[in-house]
């Protein structure tokens, strides 16, 4: 069992848990992920590693409470135990001195993006970080981002905080030289950023989050097309060349179990939150 040592509410339904898992913490690196099973018999959910502390033997992961299992995870508190935390899985990010790096994190994935920014900064890079969120209330960890970055931009879908949308990057990319770009966030955002960097020829690495079950190369549900090749998100990734990734296929594949996910989520809400809460957040 894996004891939760702290729970942090990042934003509405955006939660960060830190758990005791010394062997996992000893090996964890930026870019890798965990498979978390909250309770016996539960789903295996892949979640990116957001922090690790080798001396304390802890790892942290963040999630947006949208589906049944993430909602259930959100009910766990400090001191409680999770059934299983397997990891670290996937290949670590390639961290070395590139020069100037643009580090983009979107939505809940701002949390793991900051781990990448930190590692890139420590490797001697000049780091420019972009925090992208839906609206002001979903912005978190800005101060932390500032600590690990030479400059921080904030962008929101509705313009309530920072820039409206990501198009402002076009000007920045035209004016300034970047040697590398790393993106982690919603697929549409990763697609957008990859399209923006492509004309400037900036090597762009996206961290994909396809559906996974085992997370270790067995099931193949996480398969993605990169270039002409079929690759597995879990063992070949999760990071791939954003200019070669077939995002449209990934979006369709991510939605392949949507009706089932909705059903599961609704049933959970009915049991635990007293019914559908649409319209009364």
């Amino acid at each position: 069992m894996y004891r939760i040592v702290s729970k942090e509410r990042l934003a509405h339904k955006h939660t960060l848990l830190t758990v005791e898992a010394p062997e996992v913490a000893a090996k964890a690196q930026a870019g890798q992920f965990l498979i978390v099973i909250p309770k016996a018999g539960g789903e295996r959910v892949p979640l990116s590693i957001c922090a690790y502390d080798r001396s304390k033997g802890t790892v942290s992961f963040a999630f947006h409470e949208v589906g049944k299992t993430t909602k259930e995870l959100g009910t766990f508190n400090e001191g409680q135990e999770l059934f299983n935390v397997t990891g670290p899985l996937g290949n670590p990010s390639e961290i070395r001195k590139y020069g100037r790096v643009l580090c983009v994190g979107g939505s809940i994935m701002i949390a793991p993006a900051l781990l990448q920014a930190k590692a890139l900064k420590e490797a001697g890079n000049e780091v420019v970080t972009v925090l992208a969120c839906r609206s002001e209330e979903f912005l978190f960890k800005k101060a932390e981002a500032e600590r690990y970055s030479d400059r921080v931009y904030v962008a929101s879908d509705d313009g309530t905080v920072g820039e409206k949308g990501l198009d402002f990057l076009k000007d920045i990319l035209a004016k300034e030289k970047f040697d590398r770009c790393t993106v982690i966030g919603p697929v549409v955002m990763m697609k957008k950023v990859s399209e923006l960097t492509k004309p400037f020829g900036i090597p762009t690495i996206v961290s994909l989050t396809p559906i996974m079950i085992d997370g270790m190369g067995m099931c193949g549900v996480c398969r993605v097309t990169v270039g002409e090749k079929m690759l597995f998100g879990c063992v070949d990734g999760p990071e791939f060349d954003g200019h070669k990734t077939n995002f449209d296929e990934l979006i369709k594949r991510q939605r392949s179990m949507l009706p089932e996910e909705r059903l599961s989520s609704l049933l959970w809400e009915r049991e635990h939150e007293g019914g559908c809460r649409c319209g009364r957040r």
Partner: protein
Amino acid sequence: MEGDEPRRKRNDKALDEDIPMPRQEPEDRVKNFEEVALGYTEEMALAEAARCLKCKNPQCQKGCPVEVPIPQFIDMITQGKYDEGISIIKSKNALPAVCGRVCPQEQQCQKNCIRGKKGDPVNIGRLERFLADWERERGMKRPERPASTGKKVAIVGAGPSGLTAASDLAKLGHEVTLFEALHVAGGVLMYGIPEFRLPKEIVQKEIEYVQSLGVELRLGNLIGRIHTIPELLEQGYDAVYIGSGAGLPQWTGCPGENLGGIYSANEFLIRVNLMKAYNFPESDTPIRIGKHVVVIGGGNVAMDCARISMRLGAKVCLNYRRSRNELPARREEIENAEEEGLICNFLNAPVEFFGDDKGWVKTMRCTNMELGEPDEKGRCSVTPIACSEFDMDTDTVIVAIGQTPNPIIQRTTGGLRTNPRNGTIIVDEDGRTNLPGVFAGGDVATGAATVISAMGAGKRAAKAMHDYLMNGKGAGQ
């Protein structure tokens, strides 16, 4: 049903026929996930055991990859000494309830049975299952633990091969740690073989037995990531056995294979067997299955996928590129599947998959195939027939054309010799790799094969590892 009068003297002719296995009727079983084969009653087991000729020079045992003393345990059944019978089996085989259910006995022990020359061979598998079930239902005995040798062994993968190596090494007094990447032990016995062929509760009971031998089980530990093989040796393990199986699915490579509704056999089986998706939404992991399922392949895995699909309410076609004679699945499984309503389409192969606007598979284009000359192994080649393409409507496709070893250990173990063609680890006949103290066996060394052959490899490697641990022999090839 035969066998109502147990010790009835049957004439020679009657003894030519085996005692049939009681099974759920096809029209019932296709609606549930309960076990199909119900097992012999005591009377049936006694009658079947009585068919054993007690040969002076028994051939059956020679066909068993784990060397179960078959005539001896059958003799115990005829004497009604079931306790002794199961002890005899367990001296060689830690997983008798599993093997009694899923071993291809007809190609192994039973193939050699002298009774089989004239009629049905003695049904050794069913008798093994009878004893294992008899013991489990009465509570398994705790085995005695031998004196410790002080040697530490790490086993990677708690599937059939790893469980066998672990139990044999524990019985020899070594301190065994069994690392399993998934959250439950059992490997293919849990994620691959369906409940209706091998109930998961039975698998877990056999694993408890292996643990009772002193084996420490660590779940959720993916070796290669959490610890590498060289790190395990540095941490004080004196030897390592890699039994990580063949878990990486193979694909047809046809365009459109990434459409929704196209599953690898592994994904389909993991969802249904390991994550219990057949209970969705009571269980958390879903499975989406349409009305017209096409399973591509012809092995036991393909049959399992087909039979699960029928239980989930679909009409199922099996598309196999060779003909019925070449089907690699066990006869028994093919018969079971066809009784349940499987339609087999022989001599065709997929060419392309087409989807609807949501990216869900809708049509599958196939080409007819023709058989060529048999190769040196006696397997016929197949080639597409020109201009023979046809379309099939489908909403779910399951690709069951084989698995190769997972690459994680190979990629993270420097210097480990592997076959560049399929990623298998190269070993000698006793499971020695080229690295000192590192052994491997089962599907990771042979490519996808049977449960029992993986167990046999685990057994042979355990002997070689014991020799290495005690005498320092076999330090790398």
